C-alpha cells in the first residue's frame, strides 16, 4: 500500500514538473515583444549595399559608417508601411543633424508606383530601389515593413517586424546617441 502511495506521489510529481516546465516556456514567450524579432543579423555587421535612389545619387551603406542608420524596407502596396511613414519622417527630421540617416529601401515594387507614393506621402528621406531584392535577401527579409537600426560601427542593433512607432524609434535613437547628443 505504501509502495502504491509513493508510486502515485512520484507520478503526480512528474506530471506537476512537466506542467511547470510548459507554463514557464509559455510565460517566457508571452513576455516577449513579438514585433522585435530575434534576427540572426542582430549584433552582426549590416550587409553592405550600393543602391540607386529613386531620384538622386546612389546610396552606399559602407560610406555611412560613423552614423546611425535606420534602414526601412517598404512598398507602395503595403498598408502598414503607410502607417509608419510619419514616424520615419519625424525621426529623419528630428535627428538628421545629429548624425542619423533614414533610408527607405523599396521592395518588390515598380519605380513608378514608388515615385508616386513618395510624392503623395511627402517622403523626405532618401529612398532607394532594390531591383531583384538582393539587399532584402541579404537582410533576411520576410515581408514589409521591416526596419533595421545600425549603430555607428555598422552593426545591426535592432530588427523590427511591422510598423515602427515614433516614440519607440526616438527612444532607440536617443539611447544610441547618448545624453545631450541632440
Amino acid at each position, binding site marked *: 500500500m505504501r509502495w502504491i502511495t509513493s508510486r502515485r506521489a512520484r507520478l503526480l510529481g512528474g506530471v506537476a514538473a512537466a506542467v511547470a516546465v510548459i507554463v514557464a516556456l509559455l510565460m517566457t514567450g508571452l513576455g516577449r515583444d513579438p514585433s522585435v524579432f530575434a*534576427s*540572426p*543579423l542582430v549584433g*552582426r555587421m549590416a*550587409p553592405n549595399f550600393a543602391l540607386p535612389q529613386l531620384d538622386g545619387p546612389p546610396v552606399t551603406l559602407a560610406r555611412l559608417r560613423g552614423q546611425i542608420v535606420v534602414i526601412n524596407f517598404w512598398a507602395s502596396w503595403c498598408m502598414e508601411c503607410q502607417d509608419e511613414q510619419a514616424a520615419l519622417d519625424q525621426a529623419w527630421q528630428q535627428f538628421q543633424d545629429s548624425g542619423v540617416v533614414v533610408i527607405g529601401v523599396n521592395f*518588390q515594387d515598380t519605380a513608378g508606383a514608388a515615385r508616386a507614393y513618395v510624392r503623395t506621402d511627402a517622403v523626405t528621406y532618401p529612398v532607394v530601389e532594390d531591383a*531583384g*531584392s*538582393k539587399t*532584402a*535577401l*541579404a*537582410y*533576411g*527579409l*520576410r*515581408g514589409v515593413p521591416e526596419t533595421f537600426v545600425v549603430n555607428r560601427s555598422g552593426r545591426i542593433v535592432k530588427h523590427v517586424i511591422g510598423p515602427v512607432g515614433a516614440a519607440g524609434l526616438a527612444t532607440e535613437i536617443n539611447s544610441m546617441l547618448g545624453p545631450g547628443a541632440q
Partner: protein
Amino acid sequence: MNAAGTLRRARAGLPGMLVPVALAAGLAALVIVAAGGHPPASQAEQVQQIAAGLHCPICKDLSVADSPAPLAQQMRQEIAQKVRAGESADQIRAGFVAAYGDSVLMSPPRRGVAAVVYYLPVLVLAAGLVTAFLLLRRWLRASRRDPPLAGPPLAGPPLAGPAQAGLPQLSAAQRRAVAKAVARLREEEPG
C-alpha cells in the same frame, strides 16, 4: 572414384558459394554507383537541389523550389546567380542561414537544440529496449521463483499424501462443502 567424388563435392558446395559471390558482386556494383555512377549535375539541377533544401521564409510548408511566392522566385534567381559565380552549395546555404537563421533550412542542422530531433528517437528506442529487457528479466525471475501450484484436476480422486502438500488445510465441514459443490457441478455438466 576420386574425380567423381570431387565433382559431387563441388556440385554440393556450389549453392553455398553462390551466395557470397552474389553479395560481393552486389556490393561492388553499389560502390561503383556511389563512387561515380551519377553524372555531374547541371547548373539548373544544382539550383533545384539547393532550392529544394531551403524553406520559403514566407510560406507555411513549402521549399524555395516549390513556392510560387515572389520572394521564393527571387531566392531561386539569387541561387542561380551564385551557382553561375562558382559558389558551392554549402556556401550558398550558409549565406541564406546567415540572413534568415537555421529556420531557412528544410532539415534542421545536427547541432544545438535542433540535434535533439535526430538523437531523441534513438535515445527513446534504446531506453525502450533496456526497459523491455529489464522487465523481461524480472518476469522470468519471478516465474522461476514462484512456479504455478501443481495439483490434480478437479475431477480426480480426493487429495491425499504428497499431492495435498502446499494446499491450505480444510476443516471437515469445509471439505464436505467443497465435495457437495463439486458433486453439484458434475451433475450440472452436460453429457
